[in-house]
């Protein structure tokens, strides 16, 4: 019996997930080059500051759900990397820690104003920015000499390929709101009212933008039903001359493909630039972080100017640190500078909790119109009412 008890005891000891209470636990959803860069940065911080940091990679799809489940029970991370658009939702759930105790003007001045402002919500700061993300226009320099400057040129580009089966001028996930938003903004529309408190999905601008997206599909300018993986495949195989995607796409392009990045074209019907969503990825602190002073030391070091320069080169991230763009290594990189230029015409994604209820209904509207050929205004109106019914009991 004593032996059984000892075994049981050892087993229970082994079950304790967090063996080292002094380490700072950091969750992230990075993969590939970004993950490698983060690992290297963390190793440097451990060396320089003598703080142990444990990195845990959590799949992106499960990230938010795991956070909401783990933090209130005290099992969550101390720090985590995520985009700013859920901050409103997380503050309502008391999952994240305000940082204005730690951050003063000298730290805030490191970043582009839009980037640090995006990490704030209702008068408090909840994180420091690591990278800014927006889509831009990738094009193959072997197929296309000059990227289009306005959308009318897209429809004349079918002659790039002899028949539709060979390829398309442009590829992007046309039934996903994230890239579609650039047309919405380009037609002068917005997801929210002027005061940003309520959504309005079925505006005339939204109808015009969605009609335009459908025309791109019907005129065989873009292929239908593609997902992110296929965007990369088509672009790599030369079956698409251009792709709309973000900085992460650079790592998906094969080495033998000649490519460049340009800012998105102007929408010919309105004369406005097509403005994509701006997402700011930052490090946030859990409200249940074990040692907040130590966690902030790690957060601060990971978002420093030195680290930003390193990440911009190693992981091809578009960093928000202003000092980084003055270093010669970055100012000589045309892709990074093109994304930097695209940043000036972007629309920051709303951090309101309402934003979360927009994605699925809007996606359904895009599918209905582009895939099934439903009426544009009807589809948007039903997205609006669908969204309202999701938000019921949430208000």
């Amino acid at each position: 019996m004593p032996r059984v008890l000892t075994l049981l005891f050892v087993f229970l000891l082994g079950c304790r997930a967090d063996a080292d209470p002094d380490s700072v636990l950091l969750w992230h959803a990075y993969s590939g080059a970004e993950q490698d860069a983060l690992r290297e940065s963390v190793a440097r911080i451990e060396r320089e500051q003598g703080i142990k940091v444990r990195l845990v990679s959590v799949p992106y799809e499960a990230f938010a759900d795991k956070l909401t489940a783990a933090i209130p029970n005290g099992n969550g991370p101390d720090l985590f990397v995520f985009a700013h658009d859920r901050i409103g939702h997380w503050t309502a759930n008391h999952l994240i820690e305000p940082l204005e105790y730690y951050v003063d003007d000298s730290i805030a001045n490191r970043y582009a104003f839009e980037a640090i402002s995006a990490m704030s919500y209702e008068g408090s700061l909840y994180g420091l920015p690591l990278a800014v993300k927006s889509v831009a226009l990738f094009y193959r320099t072997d197929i296309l000499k000059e990227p289009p400057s306005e959308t009318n040129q897209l429809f004349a580009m079918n002659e790039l390929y002899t028949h539709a089966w060979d390829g398309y001028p442009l590829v992007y996930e046309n039934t996903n709101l994230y890239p579609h938003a650039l047309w919405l903004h380009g037609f002068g529309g917005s997801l929210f009212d002027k005061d940003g408190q309520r959504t309005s999905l079925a505006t005339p601008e939204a109808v015009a933008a969605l009609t335009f997206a459908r025309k791109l599909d019907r005129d065989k300018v873009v292929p239908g039903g593609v997902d992110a993986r296929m965007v990369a495949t088509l672009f790599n195989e030369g079956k698409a001359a251009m792709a709309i995607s973000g900085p992460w796409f650079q790592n998906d392009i094969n080495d033998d493909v000649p490519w460049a990045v340009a800012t998105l074209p102007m929408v010919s019907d309105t004369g406005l630039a097509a403005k994509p969503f701006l997402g700011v990825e930052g490090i946030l602190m859990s409200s249940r972080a074990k040692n907040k002073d130590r966690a902030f030391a790690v957060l601060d070091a990971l978002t420093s100017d030195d680290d930003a320069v390193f990440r911009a080169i190693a992981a091809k991230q578009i960093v928000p640190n202003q000092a980084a763009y003055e270093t010669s290594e970055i100012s000589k990189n045309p892709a990074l500078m093109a994304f930097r230029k695209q940043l000036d015409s972007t629309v920051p994604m709303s951090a309101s909790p309402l934003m979360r209820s927009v994605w699925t209904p809007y996606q359904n509207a895009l599918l209905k119109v582009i895939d099934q050929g439903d009426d544009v205004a009807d589809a948007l109106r039903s997205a609006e009412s669908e969204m309202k019914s999701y938000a019921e009991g949430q208000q």
Partner: protein
Amino acid sequence: MRRNWWHAYALAGLVSVIVATAAFVSYRNAAFERRELGRATHAATSVSKGLRPMDNVVAAYLVSPAVPSEHYEFLRERSVTEADGSHRRLGGKNAGPFDKRIYDAANQYDKSGPFVQLVTDTDYVIAAQPASGGVAVAITTPPKGPEAFPWLVVLGLLVMGSLVCAAGTLVGGSARPLGLALGASGLAVPTFLWSGLVIALFLVACSMLIAWADWRGSLERAGRELRKGGIAYAFLTPTAMAMLVLVGIPFVVGLGLGFYNNNHGEWTFVGLDNFIQILSGDGRSLSDPLNFWFTLGVTVAWTAVNVVLHVSIGVALALVLRQRWLKGRHGFRMLLILPWAIPNYITALIWKGMFQFEYGAINSVLSTVGLDKVNWFSEWSTSFASNVATNTWLGFPFMMVVALGALENIPSDMYEAAEVDGASPWQRFHHITIPHLMPAMLPALALGAIWTFNMFNVIYLVSDGRPGGGTDILVTEAYRWAFERGERYGLAAAYATIIFLILILWTIIGSRLAKKDAE
């Protein structure tokens, strides 16, 4: 021969002590919390009046109002007045160990006024009170632990109780249960003082129940039973505990959640509202995919079509594979079981890729033979068919394996006898094969129906509910309410409860049918 009176008393006493201890601990914690909250509030009030705070105060300061940053509206500083009257900024390089807590407390005061609370994960108590020129914040620790457990009281009452009980036994007859109940109820007196009447009455009721059981002799019988199967119960305990923790508790919590509504982490009791919303269709027309009855119809159709296909294909293949003239049938059998051996989500993703509009394998074949490409997920019928094709691929091997096993067990002399008697192949199939297959196929069919009814992976990964949620089944619908439509966990839990009830109903009907069939 009656067993010793003290066996029954030991059991009744144990129950009483457990109830009384629980009552004491809850009373003690409440009293402790009241005392400490009061001390912290008092300390903060002293600071606000400019007095020196008392002992056991770890930090107490007068905190200045927040000074906003010039450039950033979301940044602000605070400072505290030290004992010597000087001012010090909270935070920065020379920050004290409690600076962060004091800063946070001042923020909380600005938001919602004076407060006092225990700090989670520590034994600190923090209080904030209004003061001229800012807010007074005090952090205290308890000077001494909470009240000790009153061993003497409990022990004394137990001994007294045992005397009463023994006396009752000596008198005999109906005095025995009376003495036992009375003796074990002694602890009800302090319990009443700690936790009130309800808990004390509960304790008395427990004692009376045990006394009654002892009088009827049920206790003795239960004891004998336990001793007889002792080792078996000991072996069962770990599994029973694991089942309780891993299945029982989540199940009960899940059932309970259905009666609540989640609003950003705040749960409110809404009674049957979630169920009413689901079962009434929430004011949507029957053809709306978000209407429960539409989804239920889709789920039932999905289950029926799949099970019919699984069973008919599985049995047909099993009949072919049984033929001795078939060369390499072991190889075929291996190949046909393969779809079952591959994790189903991988299969689902492969099929999803094959149904892709532009470059999927199926449309490629269609356009090579000169047919139009089909946009599989844009229409309900084709989208549903895509799901069914995927799940049939996944499901028939199981039915085939079960049928093969049953077929092996049919004695071949029955067929020979039937052949001698001149039975046609159809008659042999109808009168020998089918009756022998049935006992094995019915449970497999019931199980297959439950699996299909809840086949989340295929629906979620292949059609993903397209078009517009039309091909969603009940479990994917429940998932979407929980994780894609504003975290309505209560509604999702209600969905899960309804699914559970439907499956229970199905199991009961299924077993009735099987029983009837066996007769």
